[in-house]
């Protein structure tokens, strides 16, 4: 547990944010989570604009992306990331309530790295978030240029 990647959580629902953070905290994976509350904010973060103009230049190790977001929706954020040579290496995990095949297929076509349906059951949800956190922020070697915290 020496290095932890930074997680960018894109989620509009504060309750979901709290539940996700709680799950990550339980496993001490939450010391490097940045929360964006809509698609536009997520893009601001990635492009270091607005509130995030002064952040360090490293990319997050993983982006946990909800699909149904205000302003710019999740699929659009995904498309922009995967269309941009500088951002396309960032692993993106869609974390959504949507079971719809359409969303899943579109996400994969756009090049998503994983697609996770938020389980209704809290234990399963915590488990899913924990596994995502452990895998992407800890186990996975992120592409060069991502932040790793020692």
């Amino acid at each position, binding site marked *: 547990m020496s290095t932890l990647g930074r997680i960018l959580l894109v989620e509009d629902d504060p*309750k979901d944010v709290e*539940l996700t953070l709680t799950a990550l905290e339980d496993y001490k994976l939450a010391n490097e989570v940045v929360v964006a509350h809509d698609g536009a904010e997520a893009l601001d973060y990635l492009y270091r604009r607005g509130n995030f103009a002064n952040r360090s230049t490293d990319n997050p190790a993983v982006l946990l992306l909800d699909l149904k977001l205000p302003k710019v929706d999740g699929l659009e954020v995904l498309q922009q990331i995967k269309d941009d040579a500088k951002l396309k290496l960032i692993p993106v995990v869609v974390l959504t309530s949507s*079971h719809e095949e359409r969303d899943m297929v579109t996400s994969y076509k756009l090049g998503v790295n994983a697609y996770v349906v938020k389980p209704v059951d809290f234990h399963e949800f915590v488990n899913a978030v924990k596994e995502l956190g452990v895998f992407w922020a800890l186990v996975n070697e992120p592409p060069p240029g991502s932040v790793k915290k020692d």
Partner: protein
Amino acid sequence: MKSAFRRYGLAVFSVSVALVISLVMQRFNFRAEFTAFLLAVAVAAWYAGLGPGLVALVLSSVLFDYFFLEPFYTLYVTASDVPRFLVFLAFLSLLTWFGAVRRRVEQHLRQSRDDLEREVMQRRALNQELAKRSGELQATNKELEAFAYSVSHDLRAPIRHIAGFTELLQKNSASVLDERAQRHITMILESAKRMGNLIDDLLAFSRIGRAEAHKTIVSLQQLVQEAQSEVAQEVNGRNINWKIGKLPSCYGDRSMLRLVLVNLVSNAVKFTRTRPRAEIEIESTNHNPDQIVISIRDNGVGFDMKYVNRLFGVFQRLHTSEAFEGTGIGLATVQRIIHRHGGRVWAEGLVDGGATFYFSLSKSEGV
């Protein structure tokens, strides 16, 4: 009426013209009456049909005889002229007959054309109606899809929150809650879980109606095995005697048919829970050469045949959820899938005497 007048008029007119031409030609010592009358009869029969043709024939014969056969200006026929007159008559008759036949054929054709035209118009109207209906259906389907989408997305979120925060409450504040409050928390969690299951099942049910069926050759034997391993957890530690017969293959959507068997097998397992030794028998009862009929028999709690019609309805349950858990969508899903495959589902049961579920599928092409 007017057309009949016209047709007979044409006969009289053409014969008159022939007579005038013949008389004029005669002045110049040129005998044209034979040809002229033939033409007149031909025209009448050709354009006006059998009746006018016959009229022209009679008129022509009389006029021919009267003006051009000796003795002139009588209707008397001398013996030497009989052959000539007969040839004339024979020609005329033949022409009349040809003309009449042609006209009849034309009439038939015209009638067929009119019929066809009428049919085309009807088809066009039908097609328009169909296109309209299909448009309406598409709109309804879109609406339904949007509905299912928001159910899947928007309704699940609050349930997850209820369950999540209640769970956190239970975990973090257990020490300050008395037994009653703890019990209430458990109830909230159970309800949230049940609501989640209901939404998932309902969505799966609605997806079956919308999803396209991908039909392949499916081994029912294998599906039963998969269904058995799916319910392995429920079976754990129970005494179940499985009797699986030899099952055929069929032509259908694999994942849908799998769902059918999983539902029916897990029902059989569920409703035999109270039995010390459960008997579950799955076999193919094949009496009809065009059909596959599969039966799933159990010795469970059964049901009253008086409620058999409610069995396959959405959210219909015959047991309390304390006795047997479930959302009441399983059998509705089964029925929907089998109907989509052109088959039938039915059931027989006896209170406390077990139940048998049957479904039929048409025999696959090429198996």
